[in-house]
């Protein structure tokens, strides 16, 4: 095997990428209140503590409600937008799609404060509902990107063939298009769920007195004594994200296989 500087660099780079989330469980299971080496010993104690904080439970509930609603809402909106983008030509298409995808690059702070200012101006209270709206805005571009992948892989004549063979427009969508994009829909739901679950800025600005998990975590971070608990909670969140991500990726690949396409790798 030849020595490959690029390969070595790639391995180091991966190590750099994974360093934080690999350290996380190490300290979460470390039997010491100080987050530093050397390690003290193994404990489940910090995880056990998670079960004893009522505020954490309500934050978890908020997060789950927000993440599921966001996932459903942004995937529904994304379905329409992705379908329009791949199937039809309409005036100002580039501008409209670009505008809808804008939250992908806009600094979240800008999105968050502009929403906040409007809500305040309308005299509305920030709540779980307002976070759902904000998160949907943020997740929609991701949903569109994923669903566009599923839609654009479809030959347009598939739908025409179904209609040619006696199906109506809706029948063609139901019998041909939908089965082929279902894996994409599931992947989109999961990804939006993950993003919403982990999102901090918008939740922080719009949560009022109904914190989500990350907002609650942010509060904990100020107290050095709570750091091991932060680590434990972080481990749970990161673990959950990775599991959901693996499931989403499995569905995405299955969708590609079903449509007889090559895997071009990754979301986005």
């Amino acid at each position, binding site marked *: 095997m030849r020595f490959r500087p690029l390969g070595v660099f790639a391995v180091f780079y991966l190590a750099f990428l994974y360093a934080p989330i690999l350290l996380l469980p190490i300290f979460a299971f470390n039997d010491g209140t100080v987050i530093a080496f050397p390690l003290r010993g193994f404990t489940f104690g910090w995880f056990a503590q998670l079960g004893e904080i009522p505020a954490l439970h309500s934050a978890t509930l908020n997060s789950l409600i927000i993440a599921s609603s966001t996932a459903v809402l942004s995937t529904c909106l994304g379905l329409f937008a992705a379908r329009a983008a791949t199937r039809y030509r309409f005036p100002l298409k580039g501008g409209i799609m670009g505008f809808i995808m804008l939250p992908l690059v806009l600094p979240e702070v800008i999105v968050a404060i502009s929403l906040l200012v409007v809500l305040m101006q309308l005299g509305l209270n920030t709540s779980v509902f307002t976070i759902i709206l904000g998160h949907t805005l943020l997740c929609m571009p991701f949903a569109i990107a994923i669903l566009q992948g599923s839609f654009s892989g479809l030959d347009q004549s598939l739908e025409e063939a179904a209609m040619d*063979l006696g199906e109506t427009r809706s029948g063609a969508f139901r019998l041909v298009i939908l089965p082929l994009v279902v894996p994409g829909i599931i992947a989109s739901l999961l990804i939006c769920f993950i993003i919403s679950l982990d999102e901090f800025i918008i939740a922080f600005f719009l949560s009022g007195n109904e914190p989500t998990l990350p907002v609650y975590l942010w509060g904990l971070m100020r107290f050095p004594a709570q750091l091991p608990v932060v680590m434990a909670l972080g481990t749970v969140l990161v673990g959950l994200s990775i599991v959901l991500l693996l499931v989403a990726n499995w569905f995405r690949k299955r969708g590609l296989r*079903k449509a*007889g396409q090559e895997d071009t790798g990754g979301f986005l």
Partner: protein
Amino acid sequence: MSGPLISLRDVNKYYGEYHALRGITAEIGAGEFFSLLGPSGCGKTTLLRAIAGFEDISGGTITLSGKDMKGVPPNKRPTNMVFQSYAIFPHLSVEQNVGFGLRKSGMSPSEKTKAIGAALEMVGLGQYGKRAAHALSGGQRQRVALARALILKPKVLLLDEPLSALDRKMREDMQVELMKLQREVGITFILVTHDQEEALVMSDRIAVMFEGEIAQLADPEVLYRKPATKRVADFIGVMNFLPARAGDGLEVAGLGRVDMEGVYCPQGDVSGACSVGLRPETLSLLYDGETARARETEGVIDEVVYYGDMTYYDVRLEGLEEPVRLSMRNMVGRDVMTVGQTARVAWDPRAMVVFPG
């Protein structure tokens, strides 16, 4: 039933400002193998899709068995289509693909199975029913697409460039198979193609289209021997165009003077500058001892292209800038001539087609 199966009357189609179909009028009979032939962008696919119901037409009428098709959606028309990409549903098996259109047919499951089996048998895929659709080769996909369309017993089968995705050998085999299949089922086939050879081989009649208009509608032989315009002549096969001047007789550059009697003028009498079309096979090289049946001229061989069964020669004639191309069948005892050789070229005024301009 009397009258044509399909009649197109002054069919027009606009895409915004773009005039895609310009007053197409044609009649297609029952059981006919009809081709729409033309370069890409000539409107042939648009016309096919208009017949299938995928495109609304902007003006004119399309009638099918005497019924105006205006506003009739594709799923209600007695036509079925084989798509260029074949559009085989990738999530279904071969059987499910072929049986797709039977959902609303009211057949019992056993009847369906029988019909699917018969359709697959007809296209030579009897053993492939359980296969996943995405595991098929190009030729097999096409057969599935055919079976899927024919199982619904349409009055018209529409084929959108069905052979363009196949390699040459497979294409030639499929041409023959499609012709056999058409005779077997006895329904009208409308084929869209840009391949003139394919159209000539398969069709009863061909409509040659340029820029949204039918330039000529005729059977293959007429199309080949008596092209209506220079453009049709140029599009179908190979044709030499020799500058000429018509007046009292026809003065053809490189060949000399011929009588106007006997030459074919598809666009009416010509006078002044014109061009004379001659197919390569109407010219021949004369070997020692042979004499021309009509006329002969001397020339120098400029290029020899050997095809095995045939040889193409480019021959320079005096008074002509471009060499003329002629084709000779290769035979035992007849050597292929070489570049630079002087040769006698036999030609016949009766093979000439004269176009104005």
